[in-house]
């Protein structure tokens, strides 16, 4: 415009010198003509500037959107668990025309024989502005396609999510869909922090995102998965799952639920292998719940370790009868109730506390509410609607209340770590941070006594096969009958083992669940879940830096030193 006015000024100056009338008029016409052309050009420019062509805009913003990245996910030692890798994608713009569609189809299929002919033809003959033809194209293939010279066919860089450890950590990580949006597990959690919105706005590009560091240790995770796979094959179980929890911080160091899947490969979300049994499933945890019952009685002061409960005869509730699996038919002390895993004893302990107190205690221990972690998948515990005396009696030994295994582990951690209930997490957490959110639920003395009971059970009780010399393992077995068509089945069992090590100063809890072991003679927890836990502890102890000690006293002496400490 500026140039035009300059030109006109120059012209009018020059016109003053030309005297001829006709030529003067002609020149004026030419000037007018040029001026109108300029106005049209300027107007069009302004229009483009104000309202951009949608086609143009698409070309500008699309590459950014496709190249959008997700933060890396690292394990606690910085090993990569999930990362983005750039790869080229073949696209076409059929609206602009790709020449003869048949030719284009044939030519493209010389480079990519695996492309479906009909699908390709449909895509190219459509009137869409942008169609995606194929992902992950190598440099060589790109070169060959360029040589074909098909118009309006090109490449865009897009990022692809890869999980280098494969199926190792499938349930915790979850997965992403083709558009790099988290659909399950921690990938979905990552998106919930506003990343999805950033993606849409086109800001989350490049490698600017801070990596997410998990509490999971890949080496421990692998060791656990390896041992669980062995157990799965050995006991011909329907599923096997397990986890390791740091009792001091609530960090989940490993979590395996078999069968699992490879998050690198897309699969059906309804597939059974996608189910994380430790967080999404609820189970009746069986005798492992007796630890909670006894801790409740010890903590309230209503019972001591020397208290006695009569387990000589089965308990009758209307048409229900509570019997013992390893029946002793005599009066048992509290440690004996624990080590013989007496259902009658546990029921009597809970009943001595009363229904309301039992309920309040389990509520305090977080067993009656949905436990939420970073994982989007969680399950609500199945709590009896009318909680009567019989419910208290059965829940005392782990029947009649179904909780997520992670929830039960959280409560067990509180039993041994000095009485602090710490919400479990998948993210790295320091002991100081854990202390801030921890809630005191038990007296430290109760926790000392529970450590003794757990250890005693490995030395003398049902958990003998979990013993690994040097790690002072403690634990509780649990075998529960699964409900099949409304009835407890004697064949379909769920065996659980909660192992704690080292018991003189507990650092980690290992939970192992074997669902429906079929190998005859190995159906109870003491025979499958307990030895599996022992194997796992032997493998992960060195990885976690737990020092083995071989000159440790027996459990009775442990309690002695504990009571001395309490007296001082």
């Amino acid at each position: 415009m500026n140039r035009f006015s300059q030109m006109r000024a120059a012209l009018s100056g020059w016109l003053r010198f030309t005297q001829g009338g006709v030529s003067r008029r002609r020149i004026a016409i030419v000037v007018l003509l040029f001026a109108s052309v300029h106005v049209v050009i300027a107007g069009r420019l302004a229009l483009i500037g104000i309202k951009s062509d949608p086609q143009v805009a698409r070309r500008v913003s699309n590459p950014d959107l496709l190249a959008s990245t997700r933060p890396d996910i690292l394990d606690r030692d910085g090993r990569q668990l999930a990362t983005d890798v750039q790869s080229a994608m073949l696209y076409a713009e059929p609206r602009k025309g790709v020449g003869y569609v048949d030719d284009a189809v044939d030519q493209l299929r010389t480079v990519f024989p695996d492309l479906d002919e009909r699908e390709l033809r449909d895509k190219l003959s459509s009137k869409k502005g942008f169609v995606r033809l194929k992902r992950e194209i190598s440099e060589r293939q790109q070169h060959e396609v360029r040589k074909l010279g098909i118009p309006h066919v090109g490449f865009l860089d897009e990022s692809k999510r890869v999980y280098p450890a494969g199926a190792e950590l499938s349930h915790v990580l979850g997965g992403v869909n083709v558009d790099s949006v988290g659909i399950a597990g921690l990938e979905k959690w990552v998106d919930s922090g506003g990343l999805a919105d950033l993606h849409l706005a086109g800001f989350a590009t490049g490698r600017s995102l801070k990596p997410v560091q998990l509490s999971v240790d890949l080496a421990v995770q692998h060791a656990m998965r390896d041992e669980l796979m062995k157990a799965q094959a050995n006991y011909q179980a329907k599923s096997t799952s397990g986890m390791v929890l740091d009792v001091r911080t609530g960090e989940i160091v490993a979590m395996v639920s078999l069968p699992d899947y490879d998050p690198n490969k897309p699969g059906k979300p309804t597939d059974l292998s996608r189910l994380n049994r430790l967080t999404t499933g609820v189970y009746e945890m069986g005798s492992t719940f007796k630890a909670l019952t006894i801790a409740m009685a010890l903590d309230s002061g209503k019972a001591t370790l020397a208290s006695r409960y009569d387990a000589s005869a089965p308990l009758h509730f209307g048409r229900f009868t509570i019997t013992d699996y390893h029946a002793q038919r005599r009066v048992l002390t509290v440690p004996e109730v624990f080590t013989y895993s007496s259902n009658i004893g546990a029921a009597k302990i809970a009943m001595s506390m009363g229904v309301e107190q039992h309920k309040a205690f389990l509520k305090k221990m977080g067993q009656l509410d949905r436990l939420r972690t970073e994982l989007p998948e969680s399950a609500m515990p199945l709590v009896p609607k009318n909680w009567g005396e019989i419910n208290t009696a059965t829940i005392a030994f782990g029947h009649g209340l179904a909780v997520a295994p992670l929830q039960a582990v959280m409560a067990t951690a509180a039993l041994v770590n000095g009485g602090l209930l710490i919400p479990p997490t998948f993210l790295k957490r320091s002991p100081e941070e854990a202390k801030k959110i921890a809630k005191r639920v038990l007296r430290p003395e109760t926790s000392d006594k529970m450590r003794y009971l757990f250890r005693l059970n490995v030395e003398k009780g049902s958990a003998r096969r979990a013993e690994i010399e040097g790690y002072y393992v403690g634990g509780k077995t649990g075998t529960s009958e699964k409900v099949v068509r409304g009835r407890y089945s004697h064949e379909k069992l769920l065996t659980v083992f909660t192992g704690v090590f080292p018991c003189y100063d507990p650092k980690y809890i290992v939970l192992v669940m074997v669902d429906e072991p079929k190998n005859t003679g190995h159906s109870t927890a003491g025979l499958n879940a307990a030895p599996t836990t022992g194997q796992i502890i032997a493998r992960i102890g060195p990885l976690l830096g737990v020092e083995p000690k071989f000159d440790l006293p027996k459990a009775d002496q442990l309690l002695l030193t504990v009571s001395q400490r309490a007296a001082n």
Partner: protein
Amino acid sequence: MLRGLNIIAIGGLIAAAAVVYDVKYSATYEAQKVARLNSEIAKEREKIATLKAEWSTLSSPDRIQRLAMKYLNMKPLPVTQIGNFSALPDRLYTSADPIGDIINSLDHNGGARDPIGTIIEKLESAEQAAPAPETTATIAPNEEPETTGSVGETELPEPTGTLGDIPGEAPDAAPDTAPEAGMAPAGEQPEGAQ
């Protein structure tokens, strides 16, 4: 006068235009360079990310275990193989000042527990009994055997401070046979012993 000023002004204008032209183009050039480098950095980052992912895949515990089981004759570490410091026996010989001990042992001709001292002792006695030509040749070629021996003996009782200075002079200074033998006994051992 006015014309001269005009000429200067025009000259200045042209010069200024040239300078501006140059600055503009060099700026554009630099901007292009920056853009190119930035895109190269981005490309390198992508490459690094790809390589990292590849490394993570190759070093994934699952794969390592499979390979180890196939090619290595190794076993998982049993807990009983892990020890602690208190389980270790006491060190046979500990000293806060090892070099001083060497000198002391040389001085007293004792050093029954000190292997280095014994070596030097042997070396000395061998020299005194019959000057071994190959020993002297390797240590101090310019010197005569008996001179080295006597100088070594006078040097030996010196405190540690002197010993620290000697290695610096060692290459050219003549009377350094004994300290050198004291400093590097392990290497000289076969020759001295023979």
